[in-house]
């Protein structure tokens, strides 16, 4: 029953109207063969990619992707897409250590994107023929899932492997998983009893995979039920299935506990280090299975309690179920041919209902900070003309006119005869009629320059100040309508150092 459940869940929808799942063994084998098709496809496709991918074994990378996912696949757990990508990249790195890391990552991305069917329309769909009745063939379409992403209770997304993907690792035909698991554990028990530990190791590994497969299968089943609990068939089949799974797990728990005891007992008698390692491994694997099964049993018991209660509730208050609606064909297509106004109303209504509720405004420092740093409001898009500035070509005197330079020189030359304060020089500059501002600037800047002159090649015709001009700062404060600071004492007299202030 469980195997059929998984087959119909992963079978997808047939192209023609389904009149019952194909129960013939041949059809099942066909479908099982198809499970390897995605794995081979990627290896074949790599020849068409740009660049040299020869060195990467895509099949091996895909299998390790499934193995890694499985290692993290507890009950509702899985592995984050990023961690999985990193893990695959590392395997790729082992295949091609001299290639750049970027290429390893790209190989990993291609593998993941393929297995997760991320590209639009890239589902793994395979047609096959089914024989029904006497000699009548019908075409069906089988959908294969290898990995998929699921949202967990805490809102994170995890990658999980499907039951069929686990089959790829085990390499077995499609059989009833519960039976297969039981058989494997019985075999394991036998090997342990007989002391055939090498075989036991191999068997334990298969048992581990079967256990993971079973847990995946049942938890998927439970998830489907819980998801749309309003639409599940309440004829009692669901509860029967859960009961059967519970019983299976109880049986497993007993067998595993017994095996555990035997192994621990034997561990005392074995002294060889190699054998002890094997024993420890076996004990670990069995304990892993026990943990997994306990967890699943817990889930099942919870489901057993909640489902009848839910059933009772529905008699009084049928829940809003998730309707299957074809957004493409039934909404987008008709919407696009609506006239503007009606389309606008419809999309507004859809938007509001999709959003659900307005986010409450949370005033706290972080949000305030975000609000302050939010991008500025958009402005209407008219392009504003940027003024092209007209720039005159710079003359040899910069922007200073010849008259201004001459006037400044005259003012500053007076300091050859006697020293003068900057304030005095500036007031003289203010009395100049032509290019007054330029003269003021020249006088001021020259005085400043003279305070800390730097050796520089000078062109005589540019000099506004006498060579020997120096400015001294002696504490007087400049009182000037436009400038502040020190009232420098400017002196261009030669020889006498420490002259009058």
């Amino acid at each position, binding site marked *: 029953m469980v195997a059929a459940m998984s087959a119909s869940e992963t079978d997808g929808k047939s192209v023609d109207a389904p009149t019952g799942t194909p129960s013939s063994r041949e059809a099942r084998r066909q479908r099982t063969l198809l499970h390897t098709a995605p794995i081979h496809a990627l290896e074949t496709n790599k020849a068409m990619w740009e660049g040299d991918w020869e060195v990467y074994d895509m099949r091996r990378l895909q299998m390790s992707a499934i193995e890694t996912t499985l290692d993290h696949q507890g009950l509702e757990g899985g592995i984050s897409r990023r961690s999985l990508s990193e893990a695959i990249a590392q395997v790729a790195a082992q295949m091609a250590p001299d290639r750049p890391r970027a290429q390893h990552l790209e190989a990993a991305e291609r593998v993941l994107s393929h297995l*997760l069917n991320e590209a639009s329309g890239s589902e793994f769909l395979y047609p096959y023929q089914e024989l029904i009745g006497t000699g009548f063939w019908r075409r069906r379409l089988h959908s294969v899932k290898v990995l998929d992403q699921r*949202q967990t209770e*805490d809102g994170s997304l995890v990658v999980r492997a499907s039951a069929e993907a686990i089959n790829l690792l085990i390499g077995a035909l499609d059989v009833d998983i519960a039976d297969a698991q039981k058989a494997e554990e019985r075999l394991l028990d036998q090997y342990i009893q007989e002391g055939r530990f090498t075989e036991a190791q191999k068997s334990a590994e298969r048992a581990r995979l079967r256990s993971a497969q079973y847990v995946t299968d049942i938890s998927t089943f439970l998830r489907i039920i819980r998801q749309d609990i309003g639409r599940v068939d309440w004829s009692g089949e669901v509860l029967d299935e859960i009961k059967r799974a519970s019983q299976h797990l109880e049986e497993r728990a007993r067998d595993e506990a017994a095996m555990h005891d035997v192994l621990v007992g034997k561990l005392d008698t074995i002294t060889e280090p190699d054998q002890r390692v094997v024993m420890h491994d076996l004990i670990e694997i069995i304990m892993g299975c026990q943990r997994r099964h306990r967890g699943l049993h817990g889930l099942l018991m919870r489901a057993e309690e909640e489902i009848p209660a839910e059933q009772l509730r529905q008699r009084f208050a049928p829940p*809003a179920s998730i309707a299957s609606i074809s*957004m493409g064909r039934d909404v987008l297509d008709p*919407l696009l041919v609506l006239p*503007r106004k009606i389309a606008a109303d419809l999309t507004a*209504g859809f938007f509001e*209902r999709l959003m659900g*509720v307005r986010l409450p405004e949370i005033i706290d420092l972080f949000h305030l900070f975000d609000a302050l740093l939010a991008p500025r409001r958009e402005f209407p898009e008219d392009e504003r003309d940027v003024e092209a500035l007209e720039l005159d070509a710079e003359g040899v005197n910069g922007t200073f006119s010849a008259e201004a330079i001459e006037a400044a020189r005259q003012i500053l030359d007076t300091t050859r005869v006697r020293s003068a304060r900057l304030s005095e020089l500036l007031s003289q500059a203010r009395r100049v009629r032509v290019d007054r501002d330029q003269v003021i600037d020249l006088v001021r800047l020259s005085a400043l320059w003279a305070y800390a002159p730097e050796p520089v090649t000078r062109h005589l015709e540019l000099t506004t100040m006498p060579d020997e001009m120096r400015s001294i700062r002696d504490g007087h404060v400049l009182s000037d309508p436009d400038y502040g600071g020190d009232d420098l004492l400017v002196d261009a007299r030669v020889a006498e150092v420490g002259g009058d202030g």
Partner: protein
Amino acid sequence: MDEELLRQAGRLIQFGLQPRLHPGQDREYKELLSRFRLDLEFDETVRAIAEGLGLEVAATSDLGFFLAAQPGSVFAYTLGTFRRERGTAASVDDRLLHGLAMVAIVAYFYPNARDIEHAEIHPATARDVDRFLRGVCEDLKRKQKDPDVLIDQPEFEQAWHLYLRHPEAVETTDRRRAQRGALSIFDRCLTLLDERGLVRAQKDGQDVAYVPMERMRVMVGSVAGHYAYETLARHRRDQQETELK
């Protein structure tokens, strides 16, 4: 009057108003959610209070307690508000384009009924959805014989025509997407959806890929989907009636 019951009902509603919170992240939330699903009295109390607040319970699952605001409720977040809050003077066309973009995003994530049922998760970038919508619109253009709108009857312009008129991407000198292009419309919608816990960003860089969250599946599969379906059905009926006259 059981005050504790009322208080807890209020708590659950508060949790429901936080779209990025998940039951797995908060024990109290998880417990209240469980109680809602199993205890009929609690269920009725919560729904009554919610209704009083202008809210309805869209759906519940292990993955969340999903509320929807009734039209006109203070909790409603309208397309107009969205456009006003985020910048431009919202014209009718601007709102229509953003609303259309939202429908297109949802249709891209869940094209078929099966995708909603099975909670399929496939990533999408703004570019992907634009390409998809453009393709559908181009298809319509090919099928229509007389697509150009009469000058004196602009109200008859169909939504697809409006979309194709809009530039796809307006390149700015520093190669960022300008504010006007279709791609920036999708950027804005996806960013909003991310903020509201309806999608989640997966990859970084210029072309961010988003995946749909359970919240989107639920809102589409319940209130939003129903509304669209019924509105379109009503429109079809009205059209048929006018044609018969």
